[in-house]
């Protein structure tokens, strides 16, 4: 007797509902930002230019991952695309850290004397996004190895598909956060 579970469908749903939970998490944080900002005593700041590089990196990485899934579905070689996606993910992380250093050099601190919730929010929210991205990097790493070994075929691509859904989500989330901090 087998447990007849449609693994494909349930895995994707589990991921999507997990994503909904993450959306609520960031919705909570960004709405806290809005509520707090409305109360005044708020330091205005300019977004670090490094974050623009982050944005470009993550958009390109998403496009490459999208192409690699398409190629896998057509039984074409995809390793190099996934690998570059991973590298762009690492570039994203690097640019985030550089962005924080840029903030520090401008006198915007996470904590301590002279810090203001406006700056703290920026640090904490981007840090939490980066932590979620770290999970994405791990799955991308595993996917890269699997692609190298030729494990993905047009009939077996659930792993890379789940990775790509999560990665695209992280990209969209970042773009939302970027625009949010830029314009709100």
């Amino acid at each position, binding site marked *: 007797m087998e447990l007849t579970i449609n693994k494909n469908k*349930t895995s994707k749903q589990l991921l999507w509902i*997990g994503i909904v939970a993450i959306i609520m998490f*960031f919705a909570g944080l960004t709405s806290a930002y809005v509520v707090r900002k409305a109360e005044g005593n708020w330091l205005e700041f300019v977004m670090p230019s490094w974050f623009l590089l982050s944005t470009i990196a993550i958009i390109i990485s998403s496009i490459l991952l999208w192409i690699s899934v398409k190629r896998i579905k057509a039984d074409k070689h995809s390793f190099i695309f996934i690998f570059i996606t991973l590298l762009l993910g690492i570039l994203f992380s690097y640019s985030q850290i550089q962005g924080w250093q840029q903030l520090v050099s401008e006198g915007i601190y996470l904590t301590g004397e002279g810090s203001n919730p406006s700056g703290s929010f920026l640090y904490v929210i981007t840090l939490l996004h980066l932590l979620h991205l770290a999970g994405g990097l791990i799955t991308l790493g595993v996917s890269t190895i699997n692609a190298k070994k030729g494990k993905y075929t047009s009939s077996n691509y659930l792993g890379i598909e789940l990775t790509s859904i999560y990665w695209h989500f992280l990209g969209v989330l970042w773009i939302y956060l970027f625009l949010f901090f830029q314009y709100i």
Partner: protein
Amino acid sequence: MSEDHKETFITKYIFCQDHKMIAKQFLITGMLMGIVGMVMSLLFRLQLSNPGESFAVLEWFLGEKWAPDGVLDPNMYLALVTMHGTILVFWVLTAGLTGTFANFLIPLQIGARDMASGFLNMLSYWFFFGATIVMICSLFVESGPASAGWTVYPPLSALPEAIPGSGFGQDLWLVGMALFIVSSLLGGLNYIVTVLNLRTLGMSMMRLPLTIWALFITAIIGVLSFPVLFACALLLIFDRSFGTSFYLSDIILNGEALHNTGGSPILFEHLFWFLGHPEVYIILLPALGLVSEVISVNSRKPIFGYKAMVGALIAIAFLSFIVWGHHMFITGMDPFLGSVFTFTTLLIAIPSGVKVFNYLTTLWKASIRFTPAMLFAIGFISTFITGGLTGLVLGDSALDINVHDTYFVVGHFHIVMGISAIYGMFAGVYHWFPKMYGRMMNKKLGYIHFWITFISAYGVFFPMHFLGLAGLPRRYYTNSEFPMFDNLTDINDVITFFAIIGGLIQLIFVFNFFYSIFKGRKTVQNPWKSNTLEWTAPIERMHGNWPGEIPEVHRWAYDYSKPGAEEDFIAQNIPLKEGETEH
């Protein structure tokens, strides 16, 4: 997964992926935590009825440090109140109730072999277990457990040096809660996906038993609201441990001005209650679901207004997200905003009224079987009404301001949420015990348990409304310091008396539960003559639930006393007879 695969002690009882065993793990952990939480309440009740008096039992439980000469230390009083609330709200009524019955009933009642992911399910329990260990450890740290109330409002919770309970105990509280939230999310993900995907053939959504509807919607509320609590707690951790100022501003502590500027404690309240209010329904909806099932089975009648019941559950869930402000009427909220929250809050009376009306109409002219489960289900209706009525007072900003933070609130939420949900849980345990352990619980002990619990619960919480109307604030260590409350001493004596009786009687339940696991009368497959699928599964526990094919479903779960039928129940897997119409 084969049904006859070998199980070792560890894979069967400890790292088990079978949903039925995980349910029992949740239930027993929840029960043990329930006892801890209840004992705490009895300890601080002694102080409230006899302020400053010495009790050997206090020193026995708390030691010389926290109860010198048998007198409760004020800091320990705050800690007991905090931990009692935390444990009962999260450990017993969230994990103990949902963890148990969602795990146990979802696969069995929808006709699935197990949850969508047994592994995530196991992880969910073990995160909960880890959270439990951390919370228990926090009781024993040098500076005492968390003391800022179960709502952990800053600045008390955000400044480690504020009071002893703001120290390491509060850190452990936050770590424990973080683990707890992860556990809840993993569980919730699984429940939702299981209900959506693994229903057996013929089990359409509108044929689901109301228990499953309630647990399904509870899981959705949890997935939407717990992440916000997580965000809220994370910012608090940053404030406590890393020196940010999200919730802190302009504070002078021990004569020293802190560097924090620009923070807002009200922000914490917004974030907290955005979870906090849905949490009320995370607790209540499973109880509503269990009670619906128990009432219908024991009334031998279809539940009245099935679709309206589903609609009411959905409406309550939706409204629960737009009423959080009613916890914050006295935070200086704009009166117009207050009136908006009043409006949305009072709207909840409509779906709640639908539920109560449908329960009563199901009972109306029924040939009721008064099993202990049924008594608790009827008890639930009683407390849901009495507690709900005082909710109208508290939901209205103009009235709430007068009794905010008094014992009126304590009485209200204990009756409508605490006692109701506990009754739902008891109803569930008595009703599904035969399915869980293949044996029956003792009925007579069940009756004794019900009646004494019922009387003492009202004995404790009903008088609290009068204390509140007289202005007695909640959370105060002593009420003998204020002459205006002197004439309330007798009421406090009565409350403590009933609390002790109500507490002691739970020992009968605990005894009945554990004794019956081993020595209870053996059950037949379907002892309550119920329609739902779990009773078509064999009595012996097996991984996979049914030998051979999973039963197919041909009708809804409430074909009781159907005209023309031979018996007064027709299980869901019996095909419609020729010419027979669905309900």
